Structures are given as C-alpha cells and as structure tokens.
C-alpha cells in the first residue's frame, strides 16, 4: 500500500513539475499584463534545445542552459510583438507555437538527420547526490533535480511578488499601465522582464520534459502541457502558490493516467486513459471558476500599451 502512495506522490511530482515551472512563468508574464499562450511552443523548442545542448557537449546541465536560451529567444520575439508593436497577444502566441514546431522539426532533420525523435542523450532524471540522506534519501534521489528547482522557483517568485519593489511594480504595470507610467515606471521594461522570465521558466519546463523525464526529444512530447500551465495560472488566481498547487493537481491526473495504464488487463482503451488529464483539468477548472465567479483577473491583461495602439 505504501508503495502505491509513494508511486503516486513521485508520479504527481514528476508530471506536475513541467506544468508548475511553466505556470510560474505564465503567471509572471500575465501579472505584468502580457498573456503568453505560446508557452506551449516555448516548451517544445526548449525541449529540443535541451537535447541539442546535451548532445553537443555531453553535459546535460549545458543542455538546460541551452533550453533556457531558446526560451529567452522565443519569448523575446513575443515581447517585441506584444509590447513594442502592440500586436494581438493570442495571435502572436499562435505564431510562436508554429515557429517552435517548425524549428524542432527542421532541427531534428538538420542536426540528427532523423524524423520524429532524437537519439538518446545524457539526462537529469535523478538526483543521486541526495541518496545519502537517511530514510527519505532513496525517494528524493529518485526524483529529477528539476523538481527541486521548481520548488525553489516557487519560493523565489512568491517572495518577489510579496516583498520586493519589483513585484509591486509588476503588479502595478499589469493593473494600470498608465498609472505606472505616471508614477515614473517604465512599463515596457518591466513587461519585457516579465515575459522573458516566463521564457526562462518555460525553458526549464521544456527541458524537464526531454531531460528530466526522459533522455531524448520526441515530436509532440509537450502534448498540451503549456496550455495546462495557463489553466493552472487561472485556477490559482494568479498567485504563485495557487498556480503551483493547481499545476500539481493537473499532475495528479496524469499520474492517475499512468497508474491506470499499468494495471494489467485493464479494459479501458488506452486512448480514453490518455484523455483523463485533459478532461479532468477542464472539469476542475470549470468547477473552480464557477464557484468563484467574482474572480477578477488582471485588469490590463492582454491590452497593448504602446504608442502604436491608440489608447481608448
């Protein structure tokens, strides 16, 4: 019995980590007023970048660095479009996803000469350094270092918003950019920071998928987790802890999916099991939003603030 709970806990953490990392990024971006639906694309491209980096250097941590760079690059494009150009943020996000799909496909062929998936590379699926801790050491070491990075990120981002001047400024910019400007803040600079930070987090999330959970890149491996991350942000009411918890909740459903698949001779077709995380997440989202219907989002979210768009 204990084995079952340990399995579920470990699975939930594993399944929830990429969503949590990305959700923390999406949260930061949205609080500054920029919606980043393209995180799915960022995760995809970063997953590929991580494998690429690990392949070229043999060092998975450099792969992570590569993933972060890819995330930064793509989110920079989104920043320019959404912030400086004042383009439609949902539309821009779709462009990102297309670009990411394209790049992974082109990259796979160009670098590895393969279609569909990459060869195996050095990965970060476990944290052996923790195994010396008594009692829980084995469990902890079994988890990827990304899980711990996720918790660290949660702590940092939570503190940023609660205590630091930067956090206060991000919130102000997201609620009323004109007020922020009259207070002397640079709306664009703060938004650029937030969006690029979301790219870093998305990069980490993507890197986990290819290096923390497996040791290769596969087309379609993101499977909607970038969008689930956004759902987690909404469900978590735009608070870091809330988003993290919601992400883990979604991870739980994926863990359930995994578990059901391991039951021998189970009659449920695998396709229906695959549906569980998506349907369950939607259901939970619907229930939580319905209960708290007065949940107001971020006031200036999604609205461009730039000289190229006439402010009403």
């Amino acid at each position: 019995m204990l084995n079952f709970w340990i399995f579920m806990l470990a699975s939930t953490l594993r399944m929830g980590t990429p969503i949590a990392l990305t959700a923390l990024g999406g949260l930061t971006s949205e609080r500054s007023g920029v919606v980043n639906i393209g995180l799915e694309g960022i995760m995809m491209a970063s997953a590929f970048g991580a494998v690429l980096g690990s392949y070229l250097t043999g060092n998975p941590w450099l792969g992570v660095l590569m993933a972060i760079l890819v995330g930064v690059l793509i989110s920079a494009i989104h920043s320019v479009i959404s912030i400086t150009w004042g383009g439609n943020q949902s539309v821009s996000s779709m462009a990102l996803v297309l670009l990411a799909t394209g790049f992974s496909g082109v990259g796979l062929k160009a670098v590895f000469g393969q279609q569909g998936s990459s060869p195996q590379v050095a990965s970060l699926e476990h944290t052996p350094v923790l195994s010396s801790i008594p009692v829980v050491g084995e469990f902890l070491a079994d988890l990827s270092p990304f899980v711990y990075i996720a918790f660290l990120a949660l702590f940092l981002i939570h503190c940023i918003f609660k205590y630091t001047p930067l956090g206060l400024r991000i919130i102000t910019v997201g609620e009323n950019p004109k007020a922020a400007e009259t207070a002397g803040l640079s709306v664009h600079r703060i938004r650029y920071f937030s969006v690029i930070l979301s790219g870093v987090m998305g990069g980490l999330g993507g890197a986990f998928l290819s290096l923390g959970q497996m040791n290769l890149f596969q087309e379609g491996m993101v499977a909607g987790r970038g969008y689930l991350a956004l759902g987690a942000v909404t469900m978590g009411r735009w608070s870091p802890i809330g988003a993290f918890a919601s992400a883990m909740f979604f991870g739980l459903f994926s863990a359930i999916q995994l578990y059901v698949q391991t039951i021998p001779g189970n009659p449920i077709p695998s396709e229906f099991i695959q549906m569980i995380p998506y349907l369950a997440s939607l259901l939970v989202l619907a229930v939580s939003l319905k209960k708290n219907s007065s949940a107001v989002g971020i006031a200036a979210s999604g609205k461009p603030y730039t000289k190229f768009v006439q402010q009403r």
Partner: protein
Amino acid sequence: MGSIIELKGITKRFPGIVANDHISISFEEGEIHTLAGENGAGKSTLMNILFGLYQPDEGELLIRGKSVKFSNSKDSIRHKIGMVHQHFMLIPKLTVTENIIVGREIGTTLKVDRKMAGNVIRELSEQFGLKVDPDKKISELSVTEQQRVEILKVLYREAEILIFDEPTAVLTPQEIDEFCEILLKLKEKGKTIIFISHKLAEVMKISDRITVIRMGKVVGTVEKKETDSAGITRMMVGRDVNLGRRSRRQFDNQENILEVKDVCHTVNKTVKKLNHINLALRNGEVLGVAGVDGNGQEELVNVICGKLIPDSGSVFMNGREITKERIRDRKDGGLGLIPEDRHRDGLVLEYSIANNLILGLQYHEAYARHGIWLDFKKIHDSATVLKEQFDIRCANVEAGAGTLSGGNQQKVVIAREAMRNPDVLIAVQPTRGLDVGSMEFVQKTLLEQRDKGKGVLLFSLELDEILTVSDRIAVIFKGEIIDVVDANRVTRQELGMMMLGSQKEKGGEIIDKTS
C-alpha cells in the same frame, strides 16, 4: 519675477488634428495659474507634454531657464513636476501606501518596508491636511479620498510644480471649497500650481492668472482682477454663450411613466450600492439626478436599462413591470439611453455612421427584410434624414463613426435614441467632454423631448447643467434618493449639502443624514 516654466512654440499633432498650435506660455513661481478652455481645446494635451507623457513635435520647454526634453514622466518627476489626472491613476486592488510609493519604494532593493512607508504617508498627509488611511485599499475609498491619494502621490515625489487636470469635476460645492483651501495651503508652502478647468466659478475664485486656449492656440493670458466669468467665456468660445434656463411647455396632467420601487442591490455581500431606492419620473418633465460620483448612479442606471437585475424591488415603465426584462425588450418598449461613455457603450466606431444609427434596430422590419436580410438602401436613407435633422457634420453617412468629432458622435447617439421615439429617455453625463456648441445642442434636444411629452432622466455631475435643464431634482446619496426638489427653488449650496447627505426639511431646516 521668476518664470519657473516657459513653454515656447509647443506644437503637437495627432492624425487629423493639431492639438497644440505653437503655444507659448510662461508660468511664474508660486502662482496659481489656470489653463481655461472648452473640452477639446488642447489643455490636457499641453499638460501631458509638460508631464512627459507626450513629446512635442516642435517647440521648447524651459524649466527655470534651462531647456529640457522630457521623454517620459520619470524625467518630469525628476524636475519636480507632478500631475494629478482627471481620471485617477490608482490601482483598486492595492493599498493607499502601495499606490503612492510604487516606483520610489521605501526599504531595500529586496524588501519594501510597508510599515515605515505608512508612517511617512501619515506624516505627509498631516502636513498638507489631506486626511487618508494608508492601509486601506483604494477600492474602499470615496472619490474625494481617492483624490487626496492622487495629490499625496505627487507630494511624495517632492513635486514643486503641481498640475491639476479638471480636479473639481467630481466634487460637490462644499468639497470644492475644501479643495480650494488645499490649493491655497499648497501655495503657502511655496508650490506652483497649474490648474486646468473649464468651470469658471472655481477658476475665478482661486487663480492668480488665467490663460485661455481655444482650438489649440493661446487666446491670451490675463490677471484675474482684469476679467470676469463672462470675459473668460468669451475668450474660450469666441462668442457670448447662454447656457441658462430656457422657457418650457407646461403640462397639466402628468403621470408616472417610470417608477423604481424599493430597489436593493448589494455587492460583495457587504456594500449596499442601492438601498431601498425609490424614484418616479413623470411624462413631460426633466428629472435631474444629482449626487457625488459613486453613490449609486451607475447601479441605478443599470437597473433601469436592464444591465443589472436588483436583489429586490421592482421597476415599472408605463405601468408594466420591467424589473427582469432583457435590454432589447426594454428598448423596444420605449426606453432610450444615452450612455455615459459614448465610445465604449454608445457607438461601434468602426461601423459607418449609418450602421450606428440602426444599432439595436438591426432586426426590425424597417431595416431588414424578414428580420434577416439587411436593406442597405433603407438604412442609408434613414441615416440621411437623421443627418439633416440633427445636424450631424460628416462627409457622408457611410463614413466610419470614428472619424466624427466628439460632439457629432454624441449627436449620432442622441439621434438614434430619439428616432425610436422613446417614452423614457435616460441621459447619463450627456455633455461630458463636449465643446460648448455641442453642449447647447444636447441640452436643447433634451428639452425638446421633454416638451414632446417624454420623460427625461438626467444624470450629471455638473450641477449647473442639472439646475439649468431639470424641472425637478432628485439627490442620490449612498444608494438612496434623499429628496426631490423643485429646480426653480433650490440653490447650489443647498444641493451641495444634500449631495453630502443632509436633508432639507419642509421648513428649510437641514437635517444631517450622514450616519
């Protein structure tokens, strides 16, 4: 002498319009200088340039004799300029302290010291007599309190030059007096004040000098003692203007055509926006609703027009209960609405003028065969007729509504509503942001509707407008109608006191209702 700010030849163009046309003004240190002009004259644009929010296309800006270039408000703040905007720049979710200190936080780079900040703000508010609780959220404050926070924001940044953009628009006469005292106190402490307004009473009261701007150009700068209200008006508009009371038709048998009975609406489980409110509008009258912004006007309008279903109580129109009716049915049933924000609620700017004139009527047999297929010829012809009738200045009715001036846009809204021949016409701030000519037109139209036998419900924050246009005046305070008085027999002061909660007794004694 000490010209603290000098504007030389400032020019600012926007697509299609020259907002500021070679404007040159010099402001002296320690004075209260008013920029007067109609809506749309260019005053706000000019001050936004001074505050760094816009950059001039031509011209020079000198602060204490030195030429400066402001690329954003940070620069102007550094030069000790502060601006209190007409529409408050506050974040409802955050506290007073947070709103004031953001951008210049107290504490370390890593931690904001909210406690110390609160103390600093308390001190500052005592120093300038601006009472406010630093820990409250903005959403919990009244409009006047919010204005105090705006002023504190500016003082916190050690501004020496304060720009106020239409600060008295939302205040009662008593509050305006208090505000003028605050300005005098600031002047005492050596601040230079630039005050933008088109409301002449205040302008004449506290200014030292007045510069009038018309259509983007400076008409002239005068000392207060050299001029009077009429003189300023003439400079602002270019002619004599009569916004006084007009003669009107008398009605014998008047009935209630709109009744609001015992309506309640609570928000967030605690705040009562409408508190057993009662209101009755008669046919053939203009009933003005006076009150400080935020006392339930918005909710009342929404309950009547159908955007809000009250928690309890009922609404009747022509004897029929409409409390839960859809907006469309109410409009078809005889309710017209001129909304507060014509851009947001009145027009679809990207649609043509003609198409805007049928907004809400697009499925009527008059404009669509079988209610489905739009008849563009009929729409066009109808629009052409309305264009003549309401003097809508446009090249042709197929042009986009966004190309019209504010006054003409409002005419489109009014034309559309009037064309439907409503029994009840609700007008919310109908002259806001309009030039004097358009203001006259709007008020004239409202009276025409009244004289035709319609009931007009006028919501306005401009007391002069309420007094001029209304037959009776209802005062709204904290979600209740405190009293309904005869417009011919009440004074501004009395209205002002009622707006703050005092009630006029039959014998003329004032009872305080502020509990």
